[in-house]
């Protein structure tokens, strides 16, 4: 674990801001080390054929055609500016899944994804070539595969996610150790009993042919518009498969679809002798993980959840009077996949700026107690363009070791967030920090450093009313002195010399005291 993590750390440790609290699973902290997604270049080498090898001209021509044919790819592939995935590798157990799950695949294709179907044990399988990833996303619809073909293994899949790519894993009762270990690395533990299924004698789907209550009409969905879309999923989601649980310390994984309180995970055909390892709401049916590098993972305990059969099937939850013509599966799967492939919930923040009230330019430094205004732009990716992000819970911190000021920003609904506050009366090097984490959204972390200085000597209050008696005393004394000198004391030479000396001393004392600006003059007197 350590050895794997270190080179990545070195590679992009500048992004490493908040250290993991409990990195019990690799995938939990894999996100720490991922940097920004790099603009990837799709790359395909020509099949070496004897013809092209012989003539250098032919080579050159091939190179040019290759480059030209790559151009459209380059513009379509993933980049920080267009964060939606484009090329997706679909690994199947059997090509018949292509047909039996075609609604899901068709919806992906119609949204512009480029699906590449391969058998999970295809010996030519590879996620990357020449150090470049060939795909932006991976769908593992191969629950029973014991070993991937080609250069793919668990470590390669995790590296793929580590570098910010997305992953869908679907398991079912035939789930192999390989698929379970991929899930485990992502912080999701499938039930270890290989014969166990999720059973729910309360929340099952009423069916004439499915009597063992393993076909579950699940409706305990996460309340998140960004993951499940704005339209509420009315009909229950049909689920048949295995249960998994999330580690309580794992803050990155979310239960999207969870079991009802009466659900349990057990073998439906054997007597239940020991307490089931997973019961009630601890059971997660479908979970998503958003790593710290914003890579997104979906893990489903049921492959049939994605199937045409379940999507088209009518559904009635046991004990509920309402019968739905169509299950919620299609909507659920489509919406979650939209979130997963970054068509939704991907935020971009930038143009963080601040200025002193009444001024235009950004100052290099603030004085304590200055009034300042703070602005930041936040946009959300809508799948094809950046739309203004509207929320009322974006906050800025004025931070030095700990936040001195934490304020909620107001938005003009055009993506601009604004607030104003007074600089605290503590000087030092501060930071403006926008750390935004919201359920389902990519996390934002921006900061800008700014020093704060104390008052300059001449910036204090100049004439303090409380000091008026001092001023009065001083100046009456001066006046008194002058009159005294003028009228009374000019008598002798000695007295005149004394006057001169006294006047000189007085001058020095006066000047010295008055140098300390802001203090009442003659405070020493």
């Amino acid at each position: 674990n350590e050895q794997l993590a270190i080179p990545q750390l070195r590679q992009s440790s500048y992004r490493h801001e908040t250290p993991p609290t409990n990195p019990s699973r690799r995938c939990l902290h894999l996100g720490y080390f991922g940097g920004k997604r790099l603009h990837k270049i799709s790359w395909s080498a020509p099949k070496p054929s004897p013809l092209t090898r012989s003539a250098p001209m032919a080579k050159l021509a091939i190179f040019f055609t290759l480059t030209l044919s790559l151009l459209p790819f380059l513009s379509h592939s993933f980049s920080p500016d267009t964060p939606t995935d484009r090329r997706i590798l679909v690994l199947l157990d059997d090509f018949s899944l292509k047909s039996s799950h075609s609604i899901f695949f068709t919806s992906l294709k119609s949204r512009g994804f480029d699906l590449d179907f391969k058998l999970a044990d295809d010996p030519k399988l590879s996620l990357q070539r020449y150090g470049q990833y060939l795909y932006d996303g991976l769908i593992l619809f191969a629950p029973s595969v014991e070993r991937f073909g080609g250069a793919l293994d668990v470590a390669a899949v995790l590296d793929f996610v580590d570098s910010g790519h997305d992953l869908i894993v679907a398991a079912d009762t035939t789930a192999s150790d390989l698929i379970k270990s991929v899930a485990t690395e992502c912080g999701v533990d499938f039930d270890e009993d290989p014969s166990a299924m999720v059973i729910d004698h309360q929340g099952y789907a009423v069916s004439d042919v499915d009597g063992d209550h393993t076909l579950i009409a699940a409706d305990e969905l996460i309340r998140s518009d960004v993951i499940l879309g704005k339209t509420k999923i009315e009909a229950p989601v049909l689920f048949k498969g295995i249960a998994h649980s999330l580690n309580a310390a794992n803050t990155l994984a979310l239960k999207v679809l969870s079991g009802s309180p009466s659900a349990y995970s057990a073998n439906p055909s054997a007597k239940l002798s020991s307490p089931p390892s997973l019961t009630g709401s601890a059971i997660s049916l479908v979970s998503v993980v958003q790593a710290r590098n914003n890579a997104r993972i979906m893990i489903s305990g049921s492959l049939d959840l994605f199937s045409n059969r379940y999507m088209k099937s009518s559904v009635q939850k046991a004990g509920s009077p309402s019968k739905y013509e169509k299950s919620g599966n299609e909507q659920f799967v489509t919406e979650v996949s939209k979130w997963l492939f970054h068509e939704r919930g991907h935020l971009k923040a930038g143009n963080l700026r601040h200025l002193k009230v009444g001024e235009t330019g950004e100052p290099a430094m603030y004085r304590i107690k200055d009034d300042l205004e703070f602005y930041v732009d936040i946009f959300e990716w809508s799948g094809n363009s950046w739309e203004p992000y509207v929320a009322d819970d974006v906050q800025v911190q004025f931070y030095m070791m700990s936040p001195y000021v934490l304020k909620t920003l107001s938005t003009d609904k055009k993506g601009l967030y604004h607030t104003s506050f007074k600089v605290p009366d503590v000087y030092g090097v501060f930071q403006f920090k926008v750390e935004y984490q919201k359920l389902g959204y990519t996390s934002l972390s921006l900061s800008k450093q700014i020093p704060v200085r104390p008052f300059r000597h001449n910036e204090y209050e100049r004439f303090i009313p409380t000091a008026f008696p001092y001023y009065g005393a001083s100046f009456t004394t001066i006046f008194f002195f002058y009159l005294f000198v003028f009228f009374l004391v000019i008598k002798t030479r000695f007295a005149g010399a004394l006057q001169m000396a006294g006047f000189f001393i007085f001058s020095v004392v006066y000047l010295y005291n008055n140098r300390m600006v802001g203090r009442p003059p003659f405070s020493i007197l």
Partner: protein
Amino acid sequence: MARSLPGFLALIVAVALICCSFAAAASTFQPISESHRSAALETFDRSYGSLEETYEALQTFDVLGVERKPDVGTAACQSVSQTLVSSSSTLKDIFYALKVNGVLKCEVDADSVEGIVSTLQTAVGSASSLLEFYHSIGGLVLVKNQALKDDLYLADAEGVFRSIKALSQSDGRWRYSSSNPESSTYAAGLALEALAGVISLSSSEIDQSLIGTTKNDILKLFERVEKYDDGAVYFDGEESDAHENQGPITSTWSVIRGITSFAAVTSGNLNLPGEKILGLAKFFLGVGIPGDAKDFFNQVDSLACLENNRVAIPLILSLPATVNSLTRKDTLKVKVSTVLGSDAPPLKIKLVRAKDTPAIESQELKFDSANKVHVLDTLEKSVDVGNYIFVFEIVFNDPEHKKAYAVESKTEVPIFLTGAVKVGNAKIAVLDSDLGSIETQNLDFAGENLVSLGANHLQKLKLRFQLTTPLGHPFKPHQAILKLTHESKVEHVFVVGNTGKQFEIVLDFLGLVEKFYYLSGKYEIQLTVGDAVMNSFFRVIGHLDLDLPEAPEKAPRPPVQPADVYSRYGPKAEIAHIFRAPEKRPPQELSLAFLGLTVLPLLGFIIGLLRLGVNLKNFPSAAAPAAFAALFHVGIGAVLLLYVFFWLKLDLFTTLKILGFLGVFLLFVGHRTLSHLASTSSKVKSA
């Protein structure tokens, strides 16, 4: 069997996968139903690129009896007549144009038919590859079947037969052409269909020995069949470079077309076992509703071929519902139909036995001729709730049908009989260690009243209840779980065991303190009783105040409970900086009053001066000394004024600069004044 290892693995995986996904649905297969028809409309609701796609759509609609859109027909007919007239049409185009014509019955003029027939006949003569044979002979057969031209015969039928036959392999598969050594099952299907076409087009009898060897080839081909656990059989697809990948569905479709058309034109029996034909039907029914148009067509076309074939017509025994409620007095209905859902010939269905349940004896199902289902209505009297596996047998009324139809000898169907299970005698009690009961409370699962119990670690909690089936037998559900949930969400799950008739659990807290992490406080008691065949319930019984001893130092800590996802992310509380309070100052009036006080001595001095009278006797009277003395005092006044300005606005540097000049001036005039004073005083002394 030269198959690569990955291919073999894929096969195993595919077998496992399909078994699970389909066997789990129901091990009985349902014939094509209404859902298929609506799915067909959705799948084929698009424009068709080629005549092949048009044909697939039209044929699917035709077989399923779905009404097609009228504009599809006219557009397709136009394209058909264009293809048939055009001289540049390929054999494949002509073949599919004729197929579309077969479905649509477009008007084709006789001249173009003449031309097509001659094109096809020359093509048959010069054909070298299997696909050429298939398309040209297929085309001729279509022309003949559509009665576009009478007296259509193949000139050298036997020769053509032999040249197609030459492509066959010893393992039952066929090659695409004599130059290509690769062979496939898909090609075998095409070849058989082509051979069937040759036989139907020949004017004279084909040599029987040739037909005999072809039948042998078919038998060999069926040795290659793959089998699922539920009886479905199929032909595995091949990967080949020359032709597009043929999946199992396409390969099996091709073989089914081949053997059914071959069986239709040859006399005598193919000697294929009925169960294989039934297995092929099961394979296609088990596929469900394919999302891919090609797979959909292959499925429907294969089932249509099987629906009416001369080898053996598969009959499917299906149950509209395998979950039957005894309380609702549901009757067990069994339906026998062909794969496309048409009626079966008159037959009887017998319930032979139920597996592992000796109580159910052999009985015959009544035929309900109105609904065309076989009904078993004596269930609730004899059988209790539970899940059973019923074994059904089909007996034909007419023994001749046994040969024409393929049926399963014994069909095993899992049946769930559900019913209301009564809960009785439910009691919960806290016991002392000597088993003396302190408080026993009756539980009423129907009502809403919650019990409230208190216990310490020396006591025990006892829960007992009984479950009885409608027939009065004790019932053992799959799920009988007692769950204790602490306020901190720590859960403890116990399985309630059963001793004969009743369920009972005794929780001895003394032995459980460690497991309970020494957590005292309020525990919620939940009871879940559930089974596939009963009216399951999930109830909060009440709560238990548990008083456990203090945890020793080395006691295990309770596990971390997941934080609420919704509160985890919300906005944080705002922080406003608290500024240092300014120093306390006296009120301004007080300062002004004291300012007045400081002026008072000066006023006193001035008044005193005025009273005393100003003494200016010493002021020099001579012009020059008087001027110097005056300048000296003005200078001092100027310096003092400078100091006031310094206080008000000037900075130290400006002040010192001015003070420098003033100082020099002051020294000079001061010196002159003082020297004058000195000279006058010395004069006074000397005088």
